[in-house]
């Protein structure tokens, strides 16, 4: 049953009060979570710095490593700070389509510029 509220209550339910729409929000546990995320970010940044200065790898390998670390970093920020880990299915669907189209844009464009008829100069 959907509800249409035409008159808002004087205040919305507080965290912890009966009637709160989501699970109660605990300040200290969030603070702890934030510290963990920050530590993770610092580690990721350090790893990327180290990877970029490694002497025995060529640029393609280094770029792949650095992007992988960046992607993990992004996942941590998106997952915990943006609550993406506990988001609703609809948002996941939207983002899945976005990722697919983004990959198409990147991949197909690069493929198009790399695939050219044999025996031609470019």
């Amino acid at each position, binding site marked *: 049953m*959907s509800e*249409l509220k*035409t008159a808002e209550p004087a205040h919305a339910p507080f965290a912890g009060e009966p009637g709160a729409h989501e699970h109660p929000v605990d300040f200290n546990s969030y603070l702890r979570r934030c510290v963990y995320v920050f530590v993770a970010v610092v580690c990721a940044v350090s790893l990327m710095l180290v990877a970029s200065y490694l002497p025995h790898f060529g640029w393609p390998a280094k770029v792949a490593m650095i992007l992988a670390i960046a992607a993990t970093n992004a996942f941590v920020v998106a997952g915990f700070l943006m609550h993406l880990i506990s988001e609703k299915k609809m948002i996941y669907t939207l983002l899945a*389509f976005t990722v697919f*189209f983004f990959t198409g844009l990147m991949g197909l464009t690069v*493929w198009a*510029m790399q695939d*050219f008829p044999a025996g031609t100069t470019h």
Partner: protein
Amino acid sequence: MVHEFPPYRGHEKAHEPGGHGHHEDIGFGRKYIFSTDHKIIGIQYGFTALCFMLFGFFLMLLMRWQIAHPGSPVPVMGPLLAKVLGQPAANGVISPELYNSFGAMHGTIMVFLAIVPLAFAAFGNYVVPLMIGAPDMAFPRVNMASYQAYVLGGLVMLVSFFIPGGAAQAGWTSYSPLATSIPTEGQLFWIIGMVLLITSSLLGAVNFIATIIQLRAPGMTWMRLPFFVWAQFVTAFLLLLAFPPLEAAAVMQLMDNALHTSFFLPTGLAVGGQLAHISGGGSPLLWQHLFWFLGHPEVYVLILPGMGIVCEIIANNTRKPIWGYKSLVYSVLAIGFLSFIVWAHHMYLTGMGTKISAFFQATTMIISIPSVIILTCLFISLWGGSIRFNTPMLFALAFLPMFGIGGLTGLPLGFNASDVYLHDTYYVIAHFHYVVAPGTIFALFAGIYYWFPKMTGRKMNEFWGRVHFWGSLVFMNLVFMPMFAQGIKGMLRRMADGGANYSAARVPDAIGALPGTIMELHSWILWAAMALGIAQIPFILNLFWSMNHGEKVGDNPWHATTLEWQAPTPPPHGNFAEPPQIHRGPYEYSVPGHAADFTPQNEPDQPGTPALSPAH
């Protein structure tokens, strides 16, 4: 607060929902100019878009004159052009640069300032919240902002005609390096206008999707939505995800133009015989990829709302449910999805290899399938119907074969091999105009005649509606059908002299010179275009006259099932006094055992009536 537009004499002010109790007048400015009401905004979009469409039409007439009579002064308009535009229109003759700017702006204005705002923003804003039982759009102030961004973008585009050097000349596609090499500011204005228009579309897209997801009335499940709402939903997604790459590309081209970067300018570029003083290292192909990444979904933005409108009108005027509702829904979702991965069929001649060309050719062929499914469902829906041939239905019916021609003629363009010959010829122009002009525009005309009574409480005149219809149908075909022949014979696009330089009269020994018969068609097309313009006069007069003098009708003159017809006329601010409860699908016409031949979506189930189609 109750809004009335236009002032509808004799109609009781609808009961205001929520019971706030105050009826203060918010003033003309807040009510009609800075409105956040989706209906006012829809009408604002509609009128602005129709004005731009008329302007774009005039640009086309000037171009067709030049094509048929290259170098001759334009009759009637020539002196005015010379006075207003100066040197490019000296002596009333359209110079090649002026022709190019007319061409570029005709395309830009028709696509971005006329069709998309009318089909998506105008009809969508007015009808969608009503159809889903919502009081307004999810973000009314964002809605107002999106209209204002649109107007600003349009103004920038219009102003560009009057700056030294004139408007953009590099086509609606603004390919680099030409777009950066033209030494005037017109391209800069074009880019800034585009950024504003893209912003407007993005804000609108967010609003539409959020509204359709969140504000459906109780009982309005996804599979009970009218097909028009599905079409707008998919269109909004196309705008949301396909426009940003063009915005990024526009920013980069702006940097190229204003700050002399080389995003799209290759090393070794020479302009006017001189090496350009640029850093080089850029890629013209990059612009094309980013442009067409939007450009292809854009054409589906142009057609899908029209398909939605035609579906509503066909269901209503056949007095039976649409055949294949589920197929329609899945097809429109498939079209939306596939449209993102077909774009390089606009780039077959850029030197792509066989593998990538085969990929895009395959996806292009595949996307024609859901389009055909949609058209087929609409055709089959006519079978066994009690067809009412009113003006909206005439336009909706004509849409079907016209879009059929447009779509089928696209197939040789989708195949790499045949496109090598047809690319950049008049065949392409004929193809896309068939889809958009007798295609989408007919659907939009149908929509205007259909929803006019809901907006004003009066019907448009039926006789003049038919005159408008037959005139438009005959002359649209006379304008565009010959262009297929011209294209196949090798006439290229964007030639300011109409191909005279390549005609058999000028170069009789050249292989493939354009024959006299093809060149003669130019005159016929010009006459047909002028007649097409004259055929629109009854429509314009009918539109304004009927607002105050048309036949007065009630809330549901077409006896339609969808929710917008169950609201008062015109709907007040907040649309419905109570949130409607939906009990059935959108096309319950001629249900056996019912007294009336239509059952509105929100009509309560009567005890004892036969079970309706299963609730989804």
